[in-house]
């Protein structure tokens, strides 16, 4: 995930920015909500992906089992490939 922290309306929660996740599947292609929030069309529409994160990746002090995960819907402009190609 991109580690971006702009002042405006964001549809990506703070707690996953800059974190590593894995794409599960495509949810839909939708107008960009970060454009629509300011009265613009949000077109062209952007893909929305379901991305899975390990809870241990998100929360350093997480005490649950290693298999615990969270799935978040992500608009594609927030994604970036991992540097190690993983």
């Amino acid at each position, binding site marked *: 995930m991109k580690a971006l922290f702009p002042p*405006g*309306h*964001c549809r990506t929660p703070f707690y996953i920015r800059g974190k590593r996740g894995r794409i599960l599947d495509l949810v839909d292609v939708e107008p960009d*909500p970060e454009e*629509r*929030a300011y009265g613009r069309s949000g077109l062209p529409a952007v893909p929305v992906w379901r991305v899975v994160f390990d809870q241990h990746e*998100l929360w350093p002090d997480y005490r649950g089992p290693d298999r615990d995960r969270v799935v978040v819907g992500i608009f594609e402009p927030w994604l970036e490939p991992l540097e190690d190609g993983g």
Partner: protein
Amino acid sequence: MRRHHDMGGLPAGPVERSEHEHAPWEKKVDAILRLLVAKKIMTLDELRRGIEELGPGAYDELSYFERWIRSIANILLEKGVVTVRELALAIEAAEARRAAAEACPKTVAAP
């Protein structure tokens, strides 16, 4: 920087899981929003942006539907759908109706 409303994962109290009744005014706020969205006057994304822009004080002090109607009012002002003056007069008229209703409560049938 994290914005105030973006509080996922922060420490918080217990989750209230019981169902609760909505007050008539809350249902009205929901209906107003649905109409505005259906008529393409505003979007849910604008509603969310307006709620986020209320700022930390109002965000914490207002209830869920109070945040909605504050955001709706601000977005409609921005878009020129209503003017500050129209809103002021409508609020004044609503307060007068409420005062009148409280001064003259509905009669209830004797048991």
